[in-house]
């Protein structure tokens, strides 16, 4: 994992001091709320329905155990004993006091963490594949270029007051777990026929009220040219992105209104100008320095199979279920990737208590080469666990309600904070997620239904990714009453698609039954081996619509 050098430490410390001054000027009245707003946002501080909310960056979703311990400590000391992991691989605290936030940030800085650029109209925290460095088949560890992008985009003087926020995601695998096509810029690290590493760059994806799948702008940007290319995209956007209407200000709208071809032409023209100086070609020594931090950990040479692991599954049916749903093959023989679901039946998606975070930090230190990952589906991962240790890890997780064996199943839902916390929401998301989770609580039924991603947003801003849920649910407000609209067929993976709305919305009383109807329509009509999304793609909307409304 990347470690700060003196420069990184100093810059974060400077930033905390700067923010401390800004908070003081706000408290003294020298800054108005309007003047303070972009400054606090640039430091991850939102003003929510009930209180300030702080969003802490977890770059590309990778944490060391001491960092996870710090997140637990902060939940205890500054919040109400829990934190909320988000779809952007960050963590949010819902109850910090504004005047204590600089102290909180000082503590975070001790473990090389910060809240820089987790909000505001700037380049946000870079996200990536939670299985980076652990899954077979990556062109290169995507965190190397993610870290380079993190540094390049931090306090970028030209791109700090963009028309709107800007999100970059990176994957290096054919199975996209980072939803790169739904980002302002999505990057696929790949190898060309000559064996060189380069980047496929997608631009203009996004959700919100006008969802778009990103357009491929360049099939292969050579490794040395990436920052020049990114700077070209950013400059075109900063100069031509709309600032007259915040709903039309994201780069997806610029790409859509300009057209893919014209956008590509403008980017290439800008790229040629920027690249001419080679100013943005990162020295190889620096790339090597950063890459070294992401070298594989010291794996032991082990047999591919573990007798203890196999036996434990035979002896313990619950463990066998956990393995089936949550454990994924590792690239290294004798190791496994262990997913920790933060979606217990009836729980709040993405929430973890301080005690749970401490347990996970401890397990990471003892059994996973000191690493934890956060996923955009609001779960956690222990990326490097020996097969021999999986049962021990499972037992410790189970003792803290962290062993729910539902990864990728119907109860593994994404939900935004919704009307319980958010001042933009029209409807509650969390209670609905809880009701659906309870309705489908039977694990055998969940396995029978198979992979099915439900994503719930409490308003059209789509923080709960409803557009790309296999089943998406959108909370809408009609004359003061909460209604829920269903969409089907969305996907956030390499086959990214925007879901289609089924028809009129359902009341709070009817929505869970409607979801049940969608699910039984699928189980009645599916062919052998078909997942929900396959059946939907084969049959289309008609049979679902018929059952829902006739």
């Amino acid at each position, binding site marked *: 994992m990347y470690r700060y*050098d003196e*420069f*990184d430490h*100093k*810059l974060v410390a*400077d*930033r905390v*001091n*700067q923010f401390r*001054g*800004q908070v003081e000027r706000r408290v003294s009245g020298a800054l108005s709320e309007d*003047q303070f707003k*972009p*400054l606090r946002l640039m430091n991850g501080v939102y003003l929510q329905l009930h209180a300030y909310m702080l969003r802490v960056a977890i770059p590309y979703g990778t944490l060391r155990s001491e960092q996870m311990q710090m997140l637990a400590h902060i939940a205890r000391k500054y919040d109400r004993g829990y934190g909320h992991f988000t779809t952007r691989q960050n963590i949010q605290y819902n109850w910090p006091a504004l005047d204590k936030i600089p102290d909180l940030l000082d503590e975070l800085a001790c473990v090389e963490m910060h809240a820089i650029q987790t909000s505001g*109209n700037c380049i946000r925290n870079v996200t990536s594949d939670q299985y980076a460095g652990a899954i077979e088949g990556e062109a290169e560890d995507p965190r190397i270029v993610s870290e*380079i992008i993190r*540094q*390049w*985009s*931090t*306090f*970028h*003087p*030209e*791109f*700090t*007051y*963009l028309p709107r926020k800007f999100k970059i995601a990176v994957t290096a695998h054919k199975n996209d777990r980072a939803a790169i096509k739904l980002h302002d810029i999505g990057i696929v690290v790949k190898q060309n026929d000559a064996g060189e590493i380069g980047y496929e760059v997608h631009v203009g994806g996004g959700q919100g009220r006008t969802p778009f799948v990103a357009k491929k702008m360049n099939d292969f940007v050579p490794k040395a040219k990436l*920052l020049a290319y990114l700077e070209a995209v950013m*400059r075109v956007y*900063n*100069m*031509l992105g*709309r*600032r*007259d209407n915040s709903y039309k200000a994201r780069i997806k709208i610029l790409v859509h209104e300009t057209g893919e071809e014209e956008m590509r032409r403008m980017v290439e023209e800008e790229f040629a*100008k920027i690249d001419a*100086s080679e*100013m*943005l070609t*990162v*020295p*190889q*020594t*620096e790339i090597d*320095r950063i890459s070294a931090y992401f070298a594989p950990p010291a794996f032991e040479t082990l047999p591919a199979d573990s007798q203890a692991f196999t036996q434990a599954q035979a002896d313990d049916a619950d463990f066998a279920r956990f393995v089936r749903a949550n454990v994924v093959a590792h690239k290294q023989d004798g190791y496994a990737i262990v997913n920790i679901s933060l979606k217990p039946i009836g729980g709040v998606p993405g929430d973890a208590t301080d005690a749970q975070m401490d347990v996970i930090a401890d397990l990471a230190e003892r059994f996973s080469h000191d690493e934890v990952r956060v996923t955009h589906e609001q779960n956690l991962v222990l990326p490097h666990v020996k097969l021999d240790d999986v049962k021990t890890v499972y037992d410790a997780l189970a003792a803290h309600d962290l062993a729910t064996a539902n990864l990728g199943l119907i109860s593994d839902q994404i939900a935004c904070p919704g009307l319980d916390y958010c001042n933009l929401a029209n409807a509650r998301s969390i209670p609905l997620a809880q009701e659906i989770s309870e309705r489908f609580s039977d694990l055998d039924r969940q396995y029978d239904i198979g992979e099915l991603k439900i994503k719930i947003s409490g308003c059209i801003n789509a923080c709960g990714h409803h557009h790309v849920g296999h089943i998406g649910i959108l909370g809408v407000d009609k004359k003061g009453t909460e209604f829920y609209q269903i969409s089907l067929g969305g996907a956030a993976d390499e086959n990214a698609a925007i879901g289609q709305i089924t028809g009129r919305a359902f009341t709070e009383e009817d929505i869970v039954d409607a979801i049940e109807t969608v699910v039984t329509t699928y189980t009645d009509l599916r062919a052998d081996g078909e997942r929900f999304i396959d059946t939907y793609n084969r049959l289309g909307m008609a049979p679902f619509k018929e059952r829902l409304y006739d």
Partner: protein
Amino acid sequence: MTDYHLVIDGATAEESWTYLDDDAALSDAPSIISLTRLKDEADALAERSAPFGVILRADGLGKTDLGEDVRELAPFIDRLALIAIHFPAYRNGRGYSAARVLREEFNFTGQLRATGDVLYDQWAMMNRCGINAFELAANIDLATFQTALGELSGAYQPAADQNRGALWARGK
């Protein structure tokens, strides 16, 4: 009298320029004119000995409000002694790109000035993008300005200033 005071290259300076309305007659004093006027009266301006500058406006130009295109200044760059970049609101960061294009693509060496909603917390970023002159609110002193520029000790990335950025500096 102006309602701002000027800092140029880190020092307090007297205002020697006048912003001219489009319908005001040209004088012998150094004048800042609009882009429209610059394009319309380029030949007449060329014959005058007094220096002139231009203001690049970032808003108030129609429905989608994209602002004036910095690259329209290309034919005039050598004749301009000053370019003022208008920041209609501190949140509107379009002018940062304009500044870098002027410094890095056009190699503009004259005065590059920030005017409009130019606040404490944006000065350092503007400075890194090549802006060397600031119209500050009357109650801001030079020491406050210098403090703001020094709040962040370093940078990761190159821009229009001398700082190469840590990603490059470490590699040396």
